[in-house]
């Protein structure tokens, strides 16, 4: 009848490869083709520029409330890069760089923030889910998607994103519990950006890491520098491979920082100091990636200028698409059920009559429409 320590069998690791000054740990440096490195940088830059334009458009009243992702581009991008096209991507709402990598039209993103469901009508053939608003609820359907991969034995992996705040929700824990019980190919990525609107990380959990929560469920976990694209790619490759090989779900905690406000509806000055933000500006994922590429001679002023011009053109086109997007004022009736119910048809007719006058009546005698003058 001993009293002794219980060995925990799951691993918890920390990983950092490229520091904020662009120094790289060559022993850990992942092999990424030069063309891919350039493309990754291009998408990171495009994400940054689109995000900045969105913020500006919100200030101009051209889109609604906006939730910026500045400073958080590296983690979603690293995972999107390591995923196969047919893998499933389940975002929270600050994973723009993954959408861009996976080929979503930029205009669609604008339409979402512009308040139309078309923005979450996922393009056909893309195994992605739309932005999820209720925090951490996406973890549960991500788990279901991964479960389906196992039941169908189709070799696909599901990568799900959640924030530090989301780890306080039951959904996060229930999904991880189900995921290990059924041993499904799920990779859960916690983007710890240190703030859930106004609540700091220190008040979100008493755990030293978010990653260690995985240990309780029998899952391996890793903390990575989420602003370091090389750590992100490495962790993504490893965790996705493990999940695909049947080694069960994986949890990655990516340390990052929310440089901007939660959304344009709040002012961070109210709840955090400039002194806290300042060091994180130096840890910007884009700056260190640029340094890394310049050191490798994969980027110079000329290439950078060309990229900026192309990106600006693409974003300009997306804005034109968004601003010309034709809203159908009746579409919200169309997608409640596969077939519209008689009640909804009647309500649609009621709204149309209000907006456009009485509907043309069909004459019983000849079937020709007759405009009512009542």
């Amino acid at each position, binding site marked *: 009848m001993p009293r002794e320590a219980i060995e925990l069998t799951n691993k918890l690791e920390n990983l950092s490869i490229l520091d904020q000054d662009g120094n790289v740990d060559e022993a850990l440096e992942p092999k990424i083709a030069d063309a891919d490195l350039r493309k990754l940088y291009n998408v990171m830059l495009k994400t940054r520029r689109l995000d900045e334009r969105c913020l500006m458009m919100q200030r101009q009243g051209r889109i609604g409330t906006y939730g910026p992702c500045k400073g958080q581009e590296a983690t979603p991008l690293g995972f999107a890069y390591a995923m196969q096209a047919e893998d499933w991507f389940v975002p929270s709402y600050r994973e723009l760089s993954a959408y861009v990598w996976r080929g979503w039209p930029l205009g669609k993103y604008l339409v979402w923030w512009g308040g139309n*469901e*078309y923005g*979450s*009508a*996922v393009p*056909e053939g893309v195994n992605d*889910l*739309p932005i999820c608003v*209720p925090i951490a*609820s996406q*973890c*549960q*359907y*991500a*788990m*279901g*998607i*991964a*479960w*389906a*991969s196992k*039941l*169908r034995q189709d070799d696909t992996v*599901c990568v799900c994103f959640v924030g530090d705040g989301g780890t306080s929700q*039951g*959904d996060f824990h*229930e*999904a991880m*519990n*189900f995921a290990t*019980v059924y041993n499904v190919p799920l990779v859960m990525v916690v983007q710890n950006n240190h703030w859930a609107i106004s609540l700091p990380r220190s008040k979100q959990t008493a755990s030293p890491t978010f990653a260690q929560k995985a240990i309780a469920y029998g899952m391996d976990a890793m903390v990575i520098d989420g602003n370091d694209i090389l750590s992100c790619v490495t962790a993504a490759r490893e965790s996705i491979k493990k999940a695909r090989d049947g080694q069960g779900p994986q949890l990655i905690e990516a340390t990052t920082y929310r440089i901007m406000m939660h959304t344009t509806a709040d002012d961070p000055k109210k709840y955090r100091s400039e002194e806290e933000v300042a060091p994180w500006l130096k840890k910007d994922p884009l700056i260190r990636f640029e340094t890394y590429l310049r050191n490798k001679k994969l980027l110079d002023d000329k290439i950078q200028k060309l990229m900026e011009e192309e990106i600006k053109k693409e974003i300009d086109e997306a804005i034109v698409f968004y601003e010309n997007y034709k809203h159908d004022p009746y*579409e*919200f009736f169309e*997608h*409640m*059920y*596969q077939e519209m*119910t*008689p*009640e909804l048809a009647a309500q649609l007719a009621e709204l149309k009559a209000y907006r456009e006058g009485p509907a043309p009546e069909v004459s019983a005698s000849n079937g020709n429409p007759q405009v009512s003058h009542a």
Partner: protein
Amino acid sequence: MAELTMVQALNLAMREAMAEDPNVLVMGEDVGKDGGVFRVTDGLQEEFGPDRCIDTPLAEAAIAGTAIGLTFRGFKPLIEFQFDGFSFQAFHHVEGHVRRFRNRTRGRYTCPMVIRMPYGGGIRALEHHSEAPEATYAHLAGLKVVLPSGPRNARALLRSAILSPDPVVFFEPKALYRAFREEVPDEPETLPIGKGQVARAGKDVTLISYAATLRATLDAAEELADEHDIDAEVLDLLSVSPIDEDLINESVRKTGRVVVVHEAPRHCGVGAEVVARIVEKSLLYLEAPIRRVTGYDTIIPFFANEKTWLPDAGKVVQATVETVNF
């Protein structure tokens, strides 16, 4: 034809669907080995295996939430909440995603699933085991809400729910699970979701009910005929979303008098919706104020007092006599 209880009829509907379509899954707490606490899923795991009839960890939100992901991949989950009162543990998934994904993604992702749960009071159960939350779910656009009243329509409606391209909340009146047997045909049959039925034809007054209180209402109709010379028509709504407005108004226009009966509390209950539909379409046909015989606007009492609380034939008879004599 076989004489089946509602439990057996529901089991048959699931068995048929699982045999026909490998994408049909049954998921829930204790649904596999144990066959469900009411034995509705009895034998399904034995017949179809633990990957088709799945005993899940004890987490309603995860049952509903993971089922959403399974629907995206072409599965048709039939999820079971062990009791009506526990469905609220998963409410944010049903409200937040199940009913919304079709609209949110313009039809790119849909969540066709059946959310089954034992419904209502009358079996002397614990707190949270006797709830009647149909109005709560009926208020959520994007869901269909079905309540059978007997073995035959339960089997047919469950089949319709399983075949439905839309998510269906399927309430199984637990007071009727083993209350009586009914002839159920050998061949599978369906009933259109959103259509009610005339359960008893009559001319003097329209009694509108569904689920377990339909039985009390039918008993009341017999008593009204025998002892009060009142010939009541009884409607069984079967579905409260959509609701069969045409059936209701057709009957009301004939009788001019209405009593609505359900066990859920009165305030903002389905009865209120029924009354609104009648007032909107048939106001001038009414001969008397409409009456509602329902659960009271309290929490259903612990079981020592539940019979006092629940509608019964006596309450229906009294309200109907007053309506007819108005």
